[in-house]
């Protein structure tokens, strides 16, 4: 049986996936709400979780930081930033947050990730890898 539901209500529920070791989300737009919603289902029972990664398309660094901050979706990234900081602080072995960028673009993405994840950046809890 199927039920018509809006896409926004379809949450990736990770609450029962307590064996998870690593999670990688690759958003294809400026929306982060669905990622935050998925991470909100992670519980203290996820003891194996070691790595949280976010992959960005190669063109993401071309987005102007000021434009990004003024966009209506910017708040979604700050919500995600806050949630990931909570993860990092609430666990003795806080999962490492990694931004996966395209080869040779590490320098270009630094400002981009600082803009999206200001708190994680401040705490040194985010790494950029190619």
């Amino acid at each position, binding site marked *: 049986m199927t*039920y*018509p539901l809006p896409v926004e209500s379809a949450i990736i529920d990770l609450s029962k996936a307590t064996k*998870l070791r690593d999670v990688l989300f690759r958003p294809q737009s400026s929306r982060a709400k669905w990622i935050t919603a998925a991470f909100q289902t992670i519980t203290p029972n996820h003891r194996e979780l070691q790595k949280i990664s976010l992959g960005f398309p190669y063109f993401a660094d071309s987005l102007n930081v000021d434009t990004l901050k003024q966009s209506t979706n910017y708040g979604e990234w700050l919500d995600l930033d806050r949630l990931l900081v909570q993860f990092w602080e609430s666990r003795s072995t806080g999962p490492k947050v990694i931004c996966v960028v395209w080869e040779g673009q590490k320098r270009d993405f630094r400002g981009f990730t600082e803009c999206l994840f200001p708190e994680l950046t401040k705490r040194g809890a985010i790494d950029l890898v190619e």
Partner: protein
Amino acid sequence: MSSPRLPAELLDHIVDHLHDTEDALRNCCLVSKSWIPRTRKHLFAEVQFGGPEDLDAWEETFPVTSPGRYTKTLTIDCPEVVTAADAQIGGWIESFSHVVHLELGGSSQLPGTYEDDESATFLVPLRGLSPFVKSLDIDCYSLPPSRIFDLILSFPLLEDLAMTNYGYVLINKYDDSDGLPIAAQPPNHPVFTGSFKVVTIGLAPITHQLLSLLGGIHFRKLALTSERGEDISSITALVEKCSHTLESLDITCDPLGASIRRVHPYR
């Protein structure tokens, strides 16, 4: 006085050390007939048929006895040609009886070639090609999902499944609420305990097949890539089904992107 012979175990050990040196292996083949089986084990461990010309060359080289039984990784980029040749010669596919990793290309087909479930019959001779297949990588493009799963379910030990370029939804204007035939489930169908990797525009038909499996799915790794926002429902369903075994999750999707439409998730 007969010349001294190396014990077979020692000979095997020496040849095994040369497993990644093709020239040396070819030379070993010329030393003695007794050296041939072990060297062929390595020489033909990986075989790829890129096109009809490769098939012709194989048939010409091995007209009687195929060394296919030594092959562990078989890549067929032209499955239609291979199965047609098998129909002519007979038993050609059967010789690859110990394949563990099978890769099938199919995206060379023009869009819309396989529009219904009765098409794509070229996959039939490949069913159960080897009982030892543990991983299947299929570039399936517009193949009907039940045909693909007829093949998939014929490998009882299958652990890892990868499906790329799956555009059936796009080609056939499939709507997620459309019903599609479910592949018949043999008694010993795989339980899927490895990884599932899919790159698609339209995950629903595949999800429909996987969620219909009586034995369930138990993937430890999911790597799901879709350009369709609606596929978030299929993704959530797959994650939920595998949640007790899931160790690694990799999702590329855009559920809240440009188009937000109403969908029919599996429940």
